[in-house]
């Protein structure tokens, strides 16, 4: 009986094999969609299972006969990586099944190659989670970025998609260099295995440097402010299963890396590290949600909401660092649990929603919210399953999104016990910001769901929309079930997470004092939450009311046209548009945006209203960098003016200077 690690490694090999098979039959759609992707999904399930039972067990490690001289690839499966592998496996299973029904024969990249990139992408993510030395980590990390780049640009005929891919790979690469330098700091003078890094005792300066570099590198991958610009470009550009995979799993690998460096490789935590992460996380969350509220492209909307959720996770991590720095291990465990819980939640509902948009895209060939609507009548399966995701991501009980936010707020409520005045003052404000972001998420999601699935179809072409196929449905169902299960049984989930927090913090969160039903983080009288009971009661009351109404009154109803306020010439285009729905946000948070409006004058023959909302950071941070580069380039290129005497002078002067230098 091989260990879980060997099993997972086997699955990874299987994935690579599937990818190669795809290469050999690039245009054989039947093979790809009916054999390769389902097989990949099965493999993902196996990974999830293996990771699950590895969570309880001891850490296993393995050395591959590959890699650098005297630095072969070290692999290690401990609680942290097992947890993220569980996440990866569980989500990827659903996405792969969906993808089996999704990829079509197109003029873009042939399905076989898509299959290759896809499986290499998944495999490299799994290997990143397993890597136990700097070199292996970097190799898999960059392979992940590269394969996802090819997936993003799979429809490379479009210029904006090429631009998105370029921006993505560039930021990913720069971030990777940052991570690499971080390892350069961490490895002291020993070799590059994580084991030796754990031994190294760093001076405060070096430790801080390592922290900053790690935050930079992993933040760039996670979409942390202000390194987030690639995310809303790249995610919409990719095919929907890929967007789902990137948003659900790839961003989490960045979280994994941050945790690995912060809590595993660096033994010391400093309170202001935590504060930094906390503040950045808050900024990210607010920024993301506010921007997603004003998007009019459904996939961009979801991409920005991913930024927001990453912000939540970072907030949790920041709190955990702060608590850990002051030795309050139990509270650190609470905050960390919140962060990890939110990671897995986000993985589920965000992939669910991205896949739903994929189905909508296939059914309608339309991504602009302004041209959708009323799809709940045409595609009931997708609509109802998407409703689950919507309620979950909006953070509503009794679904999973609420649990992690609940835990996070609980963690905040304990912060007054911190022995640091400023933090005490900071934290309530932070809590308020978190709550505000959560409430805004509700706003965004109502907009998303209402505009896409409810109301009347805004275009005549939508009448021909067909519901998703059986494979796509299966994937969606799996993910929706995950959302519900995670929401209703938090105690058992936290039981799983406890393994991680005990590894990283040496303390677990006492998930429940009173049985599986009641989630009581610290103590029952302090706070408790029983989503299952919650669900039961709601359904019960619902049923009773319904029965009662039916009992005492007639259930008659008749259909009629909606009330038109005496203006009979109304049509579907007169519904509130996505821009309209975002208008209050634009009004309230005006300074956040860089807005350009085109208002029609009363005399326009064809009046049209356009509003473009852009990111200030792009203009304040990125364009200046570009300008600076261009300026330096202009200066540098003066070296090459073509005159040979000048060239000779260069070497002459160089010689003279060196001679003087030697004298």
């Amino acid at each position, binding site marked *: 009986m091989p260990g879980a690690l060997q099993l997972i490694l086997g699955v990874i090999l299987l994935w690579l094999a599937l990818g190669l098979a795809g290469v050999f039959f690039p245009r054989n759609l039947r093979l790809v969609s009916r054999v390769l992707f389902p097989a990949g999904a099965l493999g993902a399930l196996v990974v999830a299972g293996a990771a699950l039972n590895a969570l309880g067990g001891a850490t296993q490690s393995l050395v591959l006969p590959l890699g650098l001289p005297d630095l072969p690839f070290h692999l290690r499966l401990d609680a942290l990586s097992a947890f993220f592998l569980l996440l990866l496996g569980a989500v990827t299973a659903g996405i792969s099944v969906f993808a089996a029904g999704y990829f079509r024969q197109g003029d873009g990249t042939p399905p076989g190659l898509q299959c290759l990139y896809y499986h290499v992408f998944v495999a490299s993510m799994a290997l990143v989670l397993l890597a136990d030395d700097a070199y292996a980590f970097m190799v898999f990390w960059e392979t992940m970025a590269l394969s996802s780049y090819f997936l993003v640009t799979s429809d490379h005929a479009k210029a904006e998609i090429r631009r998105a891919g370029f921006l993505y790979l560039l930021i990913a690469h720069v971030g990777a260099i940052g991570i690499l330098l971080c390892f350069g700091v961490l490895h002291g003078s020993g070799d590059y295995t994580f084991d030796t890094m754990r031994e190294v005792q760093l001076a405060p300066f070096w430790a801080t440097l390592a922290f900053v570099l790690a935050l930079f590198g992993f933040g760039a991958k996670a979409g942390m402010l202000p390194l987030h610009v690639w995310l809303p470009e790249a995610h919409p550009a990719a095919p929907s299963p890929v967007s789902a995979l990137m948003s659900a799993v790839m961003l989490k690998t960045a979280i994994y890396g941050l945790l690995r460096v912060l809590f595993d490789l660096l033994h010391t935590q400093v309170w202001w590290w935590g504060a930094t992460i906390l503040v950045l996380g808050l900024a990210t969350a607010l920024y993301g949600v506010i921007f997603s509220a004003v998007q009019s492209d459904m996939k961009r909307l979801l991409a920005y909401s991913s930024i927001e959720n990453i912000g939540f996770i970072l907030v949790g991590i920041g709190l955990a660092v702060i608590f850990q720095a002051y030795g309050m291990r139990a509270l650190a465990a609470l905050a960390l649990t919140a962060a990890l819980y939110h990671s897995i939640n986000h993985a589920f509902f965000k992939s669910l929603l991205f896949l739903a948009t994929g189905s909508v895209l296939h059914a309608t060939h339309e991504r602009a919210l302004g041209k959708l609507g009323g799809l709940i009548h045409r595609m009931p399966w997708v609509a109802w399953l998407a409703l689950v995701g919507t309620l979950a991501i909006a953070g509503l009980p009794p679904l999973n999104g609420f649990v992690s936010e609940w835990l996070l707020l609980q963690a905040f409520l304990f912060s007054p016990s911190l022995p640091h005045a400023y933090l005490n003052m900071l934290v309530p404000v932070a809590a308020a910001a978190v709550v505000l972001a959560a409430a805004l998420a509700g706003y965004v999601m109502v907009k998303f769901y209402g505009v896409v699935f409810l109301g009347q179809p805004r275009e005549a072409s939508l009448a021909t929309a067909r519901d998703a196929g059986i494979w796509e449905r299966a994937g969606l169902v799996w993910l929706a079930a995950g959302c519900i299960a995670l929401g209703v049984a938090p105690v058992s989930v936290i039981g799983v997470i406890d393994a991680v927090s005990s590894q990283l913090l040496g303390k677990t969160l006492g998930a429940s004092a009173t049985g599986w039903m009641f989630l009581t983080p610290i103590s029952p009288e302090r706070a408790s939450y029983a989503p299952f009971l919650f669900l039961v009661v709601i359904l019960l009351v619902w049923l009773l009311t319904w029965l009662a109404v039916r009992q005492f009154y007639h259930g008659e109803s008749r259909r009629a046209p909606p009330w038109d306020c005496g203006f009979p010439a109304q049509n579907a285009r007169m519904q509130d548009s996505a821009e309209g729905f975002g208008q209050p946000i634009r009004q309230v948070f005006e300074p956040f945006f860089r807005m350009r409006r085109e208002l029609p004058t009363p005399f326009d023959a064809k009046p049209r209203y356009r509003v473009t909302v852009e990111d200030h950071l792009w203009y304040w941070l990125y364009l200046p960098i570009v300008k600076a580069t261009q300026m330096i380039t202009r200066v540098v290129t003066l070296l090459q003016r*073509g005159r040979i*005497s000048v060239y*000779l002078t260069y070497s*002459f002067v160089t010689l003279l200077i060196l001679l003087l230098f030697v*004298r």
Partner: protein
Amino acid sequence: MHLPMISQIINLLAAILLLLSFAMLTQRRILSLINFFALQGLTLTLAILVVAYSTGQHHLYYSAALTFVLKVLILPWVLHRLIRKLNVKWDVETLINIPTTMLVGIGLVILAFNVALPISQLAGTIARSTLGIALACVLLAFLTMITRSKAVPQVIGFLAMENGLVFAATSATYGMPMVVEFGIALDVMVGMVILGVFFFQIRERFESLDIRHLEKLTEE
């Protein structure tokens, strides 16, 4: 008793070499430039001979002969033929005006002497004190190349640099090993041939040997 005498002669020749380098640096006419180059070669030959005679280093005779044949006979002759074929007898205008060039040259000489001082104290050869002059010759030739805007004078400057190197080799180390000497000579020969070919091609492409035509490849 005659050793100081010898070294005096060598120093004299070295001084002449330096003077010739200055002359070439400031010379406007190609023909006289070539003549000066030949003269430099001759002086170099003499210097090598003196060193060879005074120290009884036999291989120095060979290198002297080599220098004479190459630098005094063949190369000047080739150059003369070239400019006759290409009829480029006109004056050479320099990029920097002459006085400035001379001032820079003097600065170079001072630097060269200072740099060479420690080495010449260490070197065990009788002509050691002239190493500074050799370095000065090299640097002056370098300057010549920089300041000339025509192809031929630039090449002459390049050859003058070779002279300076040979003189340095002689003064500092009684010449390089024979095989190396021959190698260097071979390179110079081949280089000369290739350059000859080049002159004609450049002429036929650009109707001139003014290398200010050769400034197209830039980053603008």
